[in-house]
């Protein structure tokens, strides 16, 4: 239960952990471009060196960084084979039915797998060093410019914050409901598709009813405390970015720019 609320966050005392979440999110997007732009040997080199450097800065263990990766070995193999075997080309090395193995296909497969691995490690870096609350707050600040298009950013921030705070209780409730229905003899293994679909109703319906009941009660509690719209509230305090955050942003932009020329 606890684990889910902190997500994959791992507590450590590193530069990356201390970095402002807004700057971190922007850097993440810049580096994401760096990873996805890798096509040649040099550009792969740059992407890999950058990634290794950031990993070292994070002080995270190797297992934490590759945690999602290890669960996905089969997925990676499937992706590789899909690309390698279905790449249509004239120069086939080996052919069997609809399967065509070619040099280009293998290269293509390797590209895709490499990109997935790079992006996964990078996103692990973000989620392991930033709590979900920090991330949502950062997202809210970064979405601010959207106000120009009359998008109610405060409302979105409120919705996200409430959603986060409801996850632990709903998770517990879902678990209880699942157990309760199993104790009442619910089964989920029917072969008939419609029967199988129906067999999930005892699970889904109560979970939704509980969730909607919670929303209903919370709306009363919020109104009772004087809520009258997300816009009419004390504004959030403005915290300026630190020098180190700006420096990090600068470095990431440079790497990103270099990648476009490689």
């Amino acid at each position, binding site marked *: 239960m606890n684990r*889910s*609320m902190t*997500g*994959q966050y791992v507590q450590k005392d590193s530069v990356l952990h201390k970095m402002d979440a807004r700057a971190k999110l922007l850097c993440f997007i810049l580096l994401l471009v760096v990873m996805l732009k890798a096509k040649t040997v040099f550009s792969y080199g740059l992407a890999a060196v950058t990634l290794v450097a950031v990993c070292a800065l994070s002080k995270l263990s190797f297992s934490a960084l590759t*945690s*999602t990766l290890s*669960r*996905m070995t089969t*997925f990676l193999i499937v992706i590789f084979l899909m*690309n390698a075997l279905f790449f249509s080309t004239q120069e086939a090395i080996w052919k069997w039915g609809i399967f065509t193995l070619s040099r280009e296909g293998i290269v293509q497969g390797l590209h895709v797998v490499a990109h*997935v691995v790079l*992006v*996964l490690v990078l*996103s692990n870096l973000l*989620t392991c060093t930033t709590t*979900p609350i920090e*991330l949502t707050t950062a997202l809210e600040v970064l979405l601010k410019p959207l106000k120009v298009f009359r998008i109610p950013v405060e*409302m*979105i921030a*409120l*919705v*996200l914050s*409430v*959603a*986060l705070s*409801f*996850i632990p209780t*709903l*998770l517990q409730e*879902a*678990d209880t409901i*699942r157990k309760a229905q199993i104790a009442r003899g619910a089964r*989920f*293994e029917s072969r008939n*598709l*419609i029967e*199988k*679909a*129906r067999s*999930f*109703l005892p*699970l*889904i*319906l109560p*979970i*939704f*009813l509980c*969730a*909607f*009941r*919670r*929303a*209903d009660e*919370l*709306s009363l509690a*919020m*109104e009772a405390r004087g*809520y009258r*719209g997300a816009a009419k509230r004390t504004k959030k305090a403005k915290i300026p970015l630190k020098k180190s955050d700006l420096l990090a942003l600068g470095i990431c932009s440079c790497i990103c720019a270099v990648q476009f020329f490689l």
Partner: protein
Amino acid sequence: MTKMSILKRALICAVCIALCVVLPMAFHSIPDAGSILSPMHIPALLCGLVCGPWFGLLCGLAGPLLSSQLTGMPMMAYLPPMMVELAVYGLVAGLMMQFVRTKKSLADVVISMIVAMLVGRIVAGAAKALIFAAGEFTMAMWISSYFVAMIPGIIMHLVAVPALYYALEKAHLIPRRYPKA
């Protein structure tokens, strides 16, 4: 139909987003339920039907995003097309509910959700073919991954969402679409 306050719709949207994270985890312990049945589609559709297109859109975008961030599922690689698909579900379901008025709330729900599910799949397929996996994504892949592989899931969504709408009306958690005279 008495409309729900914006606060209430916002909070329902919030719990639907939370359910996008919770449902796949709750289904996790039941063999092959999580992957085949795509439980995350249900809150996105329902949010659109109940709270309107804009909240539906928000739920479809934020649900998978939050889930990916908290649980690592769906994986980053699948995230963008999934967000597009669910966001279109929520948006179209909400829009359809504003136009379809057959005098029977369940008929409205079923029509709206079928249209939403179709449009969502078309848009997600197009997005995949044109942006996310340009060149690698074919018509055959679209049909197999969005329809054939999803048959159990589609059936469950078609059963669950109207049943949910009916139960929520009965429990007075959402206002009746067509109040009894």
